[in-house]
């Protein structure tokens, strides 16, 4: 009985704190995405304004490690029985991807463009999934500075 109560407490803590953190994070993501719209970012190999001369370029990257809350993990485990979309993980990965891109952009505020954007995901708790489940999303690309 005690174990069950503890379990329910963990579950609701996970739910409420997780939800609060997610709301806050999405708010920040939306604001920053709006702000960084001024820095064009594409997955293209070539710059979009081909007539301008490139002054310099360098590699930029941004990453985020994201972990699941207790509620989401249990929900995903329950989902394992019947199969289907693991919806509880979707928003988590979405947040990690967008945050990684934003961090990448924030690392080169002076750049004119970021091209060749790539995203990579890696599970950093492979084989130890029972303790913690977390993934890293890495965004990298080439920052371009046009000659003035």
């Amino acid at each position, binding site marked *: *009985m005690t*174990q*069950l109560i503890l*379990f329910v407490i963990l579950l609701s803590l996970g*739910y409420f704190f997780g939800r609060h953190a997610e709301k806050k994070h999405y708010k920040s993501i939306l604001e920053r*995405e*709006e702000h960084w*719209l*001024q820095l*064009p970012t*594409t997955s293209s190999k070539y710059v*979009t*304004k081909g007539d301008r001369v490139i002054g310099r370029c360098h590699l930029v990257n941004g990453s985020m490690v994201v972990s699941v809350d*207790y*509620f*989401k*993990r*249990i*929900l995903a*485990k*329950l*989902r394992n*029985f*019947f199969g289907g*979309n693991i*919806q*509880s993980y*979707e*928003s988590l*990965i*979405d947040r990690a991807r967008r945050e990684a891109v934003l961090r990448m952009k924030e690392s080169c505020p002076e750049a004119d463009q970021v091209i060749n954007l790539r995203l990579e995901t890696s599970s950093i708790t492979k084989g130890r999934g*029972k303790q913690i489940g977390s993934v890293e999303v890495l965004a990298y690309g080439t920052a371009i500075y046009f000659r003035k």
Partner: protein
Amino acid sequence: MKYIPSLPGRNDNVSHDQPVREFVLLFAGITFVLLVVFWTLGLFVDKAIDYISPEMEATIFVSVDASVSKSVDDNDPRQEELQRMIDALRKCIRIDYPLKVHLINSDEANALAFPGGRIFVFSGLLDKVLSENGLSFILAHELAHFKNRDHLRGMGRGIVFTAAAALMSGAGSDLTQLFAPTANFSQAQYSQKRENMADQQALQVLSCYYGHVGGATEFFEAMKPDNKKSNLVGHYFSSHPEAVKRINNLHKLTSDLNLAIEEVLILPAILNSQN
């Protein structure tokens, strides 16, 4: 090609369903599946028990050492007296294989049927009963468990349920905690049914041995104050029907079966710890 920076109007990568709703649906579905699985497994256990004779049971469990650190010496006069009572009572329920009583020094007031024809009596029980008839009722109740093979059924269910829950959730997983109430509930419900059955048979043994059923409820009367803590949840999850309910049930059975209630016999002096 012109690059026009823009943000997507809505997020298609994320489902917008209510997670709590999903949780409740999945949990209810799994609980239902588990209840069906446990019920079916229970039937298999019952079927398997039919193939285990008391001799076979004794052979299987002979290797399980019944001696507990607090058990009394084998020639303790109290244990010998209890053994004498068991041997006399078991003729009334037609158990023709030997049963061995083990008396254990403990404050706990309880007795239990253990596989391999062994009955454990905790000495706290001797303080709670007031008469020989009261003690006989408890012993007869355990005899009824042997007669119905409830000790094997309980053990078999315990093993099978634990294995099934562990298989489905992965041993040591958080989910096992989520499944435990379902398993406990299935087992407790079944167990309560068997306890009521054993109570009824114990009444009949008492009536056969003494000619009346006086003293049958005295142990539960003595246990009543301890039951104050019980609540609705505890009730459904407890395997022994609560004392008051059992007393009422026994009274009902007594009148239904037309059994007489007469003067009780005093507890044999050797078992009477108040002396």
